[in-house]
């Protein structure tokens, strides 16, 4: 039933414009795999190549060992859920769900059985005779999900299925999708540009930028150990600082340009003395202290559980051209609250911060805390 998807050296071109560059990904059987990236990076394009709605210019896509490049979309046995639901407006909920079964020449009783099971699974059995115009967005999306899964597809594809729903419903539906996906155990490719949604729902995430994969990993790892500066700043927020490596015996130190030094024990052995690096510090990885990096508080925003401070560092400490530099303070764990204009000293959490090569392309720190 469910399959392993291998995407090998795939290229997509629109005219002379290459949208997907030589992309390779392996999506395991039964996994909920998310394509995440900024708008226009090619998520939808890649998904539609898997679905068979976009041609594949180069490379192959395989379901298990079967190359599907030349199989037309209607023969690929794929379930698809669309951003705008795409529920057939001239059919009832039940008719929508049984639509895909009818073409599969199943017996009437088998169809009824499967439809009822499915409607129960998505909690829509009481609406089965309604027309879509009388359903809310969330309900329509449940119908769309049921319709896609009921055919027992090899692969389930979802393109921003929640982006037309309001914030609260989005959270509710994403856990419903996750539960249902796990229950039927179907290989799923999920597209979103909402990073929180991606982190919450996925088994693994591929972060894509301009048609190339930046990192493929489990949500926690992507957040904790982003592969490069792009991922570090795209997923969550990262403050970036100039730094260089000092070797003292077997000790490896990072020195900020202000002179502040920290010792790291998770750097690889092949770093060299004086090597320039970029230090990535997430807002929650700062710790107020008596010494460390000096910063002035430019702005304070109270966000309930957190207080977010916008920081100003002396010239040359942080990388130029960053939109904002942030420090966030967990309200539950602190009793000092700073004011706008205060000058404070911040240390960094050595175990959590990331060290990137000077060009920002790789993370030198590889270890990840087990979760």
């Amino acid at each position, binding site marked *: 039933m469910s399959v392993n998807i291998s995407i090998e*050296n795939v290229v997509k071109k629109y005219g002379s414009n290459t949208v997907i560059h030589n992309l390779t990904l392996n999506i395991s059987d039964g996994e909920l795999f998310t394509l995440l990236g900024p708008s226009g990076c090619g998520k939808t394009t890649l998904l539609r190549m898997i*679905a*068979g*709605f976009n*041609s*594949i*210019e*180069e*490379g192959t896509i395989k379901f298990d060992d079967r190359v599907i*490049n*030349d199989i*037309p*979309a*209607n*023969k*690929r*046995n*794929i*379930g*698809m859920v*669309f*951003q*705008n639901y*795409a529920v*057939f*407006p*001239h059919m009832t909920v039940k008719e929508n769900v049984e*639509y*895909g079964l009818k*073409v*599969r020449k199943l017996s009437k009783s088998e169809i009824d059985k499967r439809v009822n099971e499915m409607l129960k699974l998505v909690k829509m059995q009481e609406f089965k005779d309604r027309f879509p115009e009388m359903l809310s967005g969330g309900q329509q999306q449940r119908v*769309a999900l049921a*319709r*896609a899964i009921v*055919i027992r597809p090899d692969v389930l*594809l979802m393109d921003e299925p929640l982006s037309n729903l309001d914030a609260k419903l989005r959270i509710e539906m994403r856990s419903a999708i996750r539960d249902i996906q796990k229950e039927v155990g179907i290989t799923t490719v999920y597209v979103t540009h909402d990073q929180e949604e991606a982190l919450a729902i996925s088994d693994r995430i591929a972060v894509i930028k301009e048609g190339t994969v930046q990192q493929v990993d489990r949500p926690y790892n992507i957040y904790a150990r982003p592969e490069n500066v792009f991922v570090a700043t795209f997923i969550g927020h990262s403050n970036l600082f100039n730094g260089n490596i000092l070797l003292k015996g077997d000790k490896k130190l990072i020195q900020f340009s202000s002179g502040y030094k920290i010792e790291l024990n998770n750097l690889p052995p092949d770093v060299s003395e004086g090597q320039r690096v970029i230090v990535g510090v997430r807002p929650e990885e700062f710790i107020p202290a008596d010494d460390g990096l000096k910063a002035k508080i430019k702005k304070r925003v109270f966000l309930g559980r957190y207080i977010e401070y916008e920081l100003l560092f002396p010239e040359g400490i942080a990388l130029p051209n960053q939109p904002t530099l942030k420090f966030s303070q967990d309200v539950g764990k602190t009793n000092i609250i700073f004011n706008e204009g205060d000058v404070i000293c911040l240390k960094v959490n050595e175990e959590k911060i990331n060290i990137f090569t000077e060009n920002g392309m790789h993370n030198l720190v590889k270890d990840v805390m087990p979760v």
Partner: protein
Amino acid sequence: MKITKLSKWDFWAYVTVGIIITFMVILAYPTFSLFVSGFKDPSSGLFSLTNFIKFFTKKYYYEGLIHSFLVSISVTLLSVIIGVPIGYFMTAFKIRGKRFLDILITISMLSPPFIGAYSWVLLLGRNGIVTNFFKNTVGIETPTIYGFIGILLVFTFKLFPYIYIYVSGALKSIDVSLSEAAESLGSGHWRTVLNIIMPLILPTILAGALLVFMNSITDFGTPMLIGEGYRVMPVLIYSEFVGEVGGSANFAAAMALIMVVITAVLFMMQKYIVNRKSYVMSSLHPMRPKPITGIKSFMVHAFIYIVVAIAIIPQLTVIYTSFLNTKGQVFQKGFSLRSYITIFDELGLAIKNTYEFGATAIVIIIILSMFIAYLSVRKRSALTGLIDTIAMLPYVLPGSVLGIALLLAFNHEPLILSGTGTIIVMSLIIRRLPYTLRSSSAILYQISPSLEEASISLGYSPAKTFFKITARLMMPGVISGAILSWITAITELSSSVILYTGLTKTMSVAIYTEVIRASYGTAAALSTILTITIVISLLIFLKISGDKEIKI
């Protein structure tokens, strides 16, 4: 690395090729034949400009062109003068019986113009009811209705609805805050209308005016029936082509080509204006009709009701006339169903033909429209672009021109169709395709492509998906367009009158020939049947489209 393509020979590729072949046969080939014929010297058979030189040097002919322009310019001006105020009044003010008036206006717009012409002859003609009344009772000779004046009268009251519909549509898209702002700045009501609203709807008026111009310059029935010797182009073309004495198909074809040039220019101007006028905003607060009272209300109502009455008089006249008692061709005292009995006895075939040809054409029109709409909206390519362009041709081929083109193309090997019902059905398809095609494309734009993709991913082939999902969802738009195509197909005269033979006569043609031989009772009975069919179709249209008005 293997390069793969999904666009192989699928269902839509076959449809594309099928449609291109169809168009080549029924449209491109006849148009081409017309060209060849128009540039052929009738005596020597060689290619030359003889026909065109003859046209522009002989007063008898080029006068026809001047007449056509005179008529169309006058009609256009009059239609604007009548249509714009009605459009404004009906949108800005609460008018009693607006819904009913709208239906009457639509009926008069959709009824064939030759019925209008013929019923004005019945009323004001040499032996007309009103003429006789004034002559016998009052002793006054009424001015003649034949010629220029008559053509003007018929066209104006038949075509002003185009302006009305365009203008009221445009007014509804103007945000009321705009005119309120002007009035709050101290601009009086009429000054606001003149300074603010008029400039905004001017492009719309222009677009409507071109439509009126195009309709009046290409119509054949009206000038033929009421023009009496006032020669305009379609009449010249017709008599040159079918004329027993000294007619020349080549010369007729040349004149037809001149018409095509004119209509093509008009069509492109119209399209240009329609495309540009999009700056008229879509409004959040459309103009709401305001109540009016007193003398203003009286004047406005009087104006509207008089215009609509004049517009609808022809339909009432023919219905009334159809029930008059007749003996032979002469009206007798009292009422009877004799005219109806006569037509069912003698012209039953024409009635049958009308519905049969109409229905056949509509079925084919629906199929073609849905496929073409799908190709041009969903499958853009050079080929579908070509189809789209060819599908425009009917707009610039006046009926009589198309009739000639079809005859020239299909009265010899390899395909002899002259004198058959097929050739008439063909002309109806070509002439009336645009209505259905346009409404089919319009509705397709509102159907999300992901519905089709959902169906395909669920295992239905693109062809099955089209029939199960797309076609089904397109239906309301297709049907409302098809009803317009149907109404105009059963009332088609200008091409049928060139293509018909005894066995393929239609009601429109029969009405025309009956009027020519002064058998007014039977003509009226036939017209009544047509009018009733139109009204019923229109009511179905209104029910289906849910819209309160017709889009043209």
